[in-house]
């Protein structure tokens, strides 16, 4: 059995952890500073008054004058998601992190420790902060478990035994199937609005119309789990090095931020775990004076040392607007590797350095002479015993 621990409106619930007094009123989640002002998510109270994600904040405020906006806090969200995963990992060795606010737990072999599925679900619920309003669904596959969790109310556990899965899923909307948005829209246009309607078609018809994704959707709708659905893939535990720098004076200028970035990178690389090593990914978080945060993830093409990482972050920060007054910086480094050398390209100098002017020159020559006077060598019959048959020149058309 697989349990799905679900926290709907995860980002909004995390924001409410800091301001619990706002719980229960019409709320919208706005973007972090510097991003497009639109509704990222909204509370059920706001949805009831016509607010929808994607709406501009100005439009939402005009619709509901007493609407309250809370700002998204990505750094806090990451911390809460990590805590959630760690708490569940105490109960089962197989915990998979899905999208933020969704975790799958394999309950196989935990009966003696956690009890029957519903009791196990209550253990899982108890491991999560109640203010997040978690809920748990238990079923033989991940899709059915998620559907069960989505159907139930917060703080409750819903268990769907294997024989009941097809009947319990039949009434659910077809839009819940893991399909591309355009495929979901097409299902709706074809009048296939419930999983029961999808299942009423032959599997071959779904496969013929929508390909492998359609066939998988049909299987999930009928309660047949494939390997991906029936397996919980535990999130790998990768070593992480973190460093934090509390700034003596709040930073507002880009130059001061670069100096701070350099110092926090140096501080992280002084840790014994990083001695003589390089990293592939960095997550930089800026903790703002108003209590919110802002973060950027930098994935490097190849492992980098402290100097190159600081330079890479500085280059990235050059093109973005500083989100506000920064009180502290924290850096999280992952992908730690013992890279000692860089692999250079053998034929790097052979690539055309300025292909665009070359293409333009050929275009002009073609206009002048009617045909491109530039040729390239191509193989015709490289196996031929007659030498002039082996290769030929063909007109080069860029």
């Amino acid at each position, binding site marked *: 059995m697989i349990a799905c621990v679900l926290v709907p409106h995860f980002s909004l619930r995390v924001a409410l952890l800091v301001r619990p007094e706002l719980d229960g009123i019409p709320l919208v989640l706005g973007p972090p500073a510097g991003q497009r002002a639109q509704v990222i998510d909204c509370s059920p109270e706001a949805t009831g008054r016509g607010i929808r994600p994607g709406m501009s904040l100005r439009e939402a405020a005009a619709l509901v004058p007493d609407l309250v906006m809370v700002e998204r806090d990505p750094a806090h969200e990451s911390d809460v998601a990590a805590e959630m995963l760690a708490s569940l990992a105490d109960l089962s060795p197989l915990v998979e992190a899905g999208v933020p606010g969704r975790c799958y737990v394999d309950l196989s072999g935990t009966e003696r420790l956690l009890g029957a599925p519903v009791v196990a679900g209550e253990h899982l619920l108890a491991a999560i902060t109640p203010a997040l309003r978690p809920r748990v669904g238990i079923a033989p596959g991940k899709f059915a478990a998620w559907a069960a969790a989505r159907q139930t109310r917060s703080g409750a556990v819903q268990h769907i035994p294997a024989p009941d899965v097809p009947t319990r899923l039949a009434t659910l909307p077809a839009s819940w199937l893991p399909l591309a948005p355009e495929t979901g829209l097409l299902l709706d246009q074809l009048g296939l609005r419930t999983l029961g309607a999808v299942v009423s078609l032959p599997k071959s018809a779904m496969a013929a119309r929508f390909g492998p994704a359609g066939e998988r959707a049909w299987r999930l709708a009928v309660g047949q789990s494939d390997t991906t659905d029936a397996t919980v893939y535990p999130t790998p535990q990768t070593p992480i090095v973190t460093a934090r720098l509390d700034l003596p004076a709040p930073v507002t200028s880009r130059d001061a931020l670069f100096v701070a970035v350099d110092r926090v990178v140096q501080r992280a690389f002084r840790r014994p775990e990083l001695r003589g090593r390089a990293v592939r990914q960095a997550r930089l978080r800026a903790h703002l004076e108003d209590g919110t945060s802002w973060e950027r993830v930098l994935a490097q093409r190849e492992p980098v040392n402290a100097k190159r990482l600081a330079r890479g972050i500085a280059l990235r920060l050059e093109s973005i607007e500083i989100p506000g007054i920064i009180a502290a910086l924290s850096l999280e480094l992952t992908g730690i590797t013992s890279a000692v050398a860089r692999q250079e390209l053998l034929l790097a100098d052979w690539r055309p350095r300025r292909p665009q002017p070359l293409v333009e020159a050929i275009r002009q020559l073609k206009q002048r002479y009617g045909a491109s006077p530039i040729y390239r060598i191509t193989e*015709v019959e490289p196996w031929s015993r007659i030498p002039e048959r*082996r*290769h*030929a020149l*063909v007109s080069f058309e860029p």
Partner: protein
Amino acid sequence: MVTNPRAPARAGELRALNQPVPVQAFGQRPDGAPRVVVERGRQVQVEEVCDTWLVEDEWWRKPICRLYFRLLLTNGVIRTVYHDLVEDQWYAQEYGT
């Protein structure tokens, strides 16, 4: 059945590479190799015949019959020439592998 349009097949902008170049060669050694080859208007003696091979092909169309020689000339240059046994003409052509 598709009728033959009788139009010559077009090879687009294809230009064959390594076309044979007519050369003048005189004398004949017992193995059929020349004794003298004309290089840039000057007669150069053949020092040694490094290799010899025969290419016969396309007997069903326009027969090709070439007797190739890899020659070391007295000026130190290695030259590949062939005797076209159909036309009785000499050509220079790099053969490669």
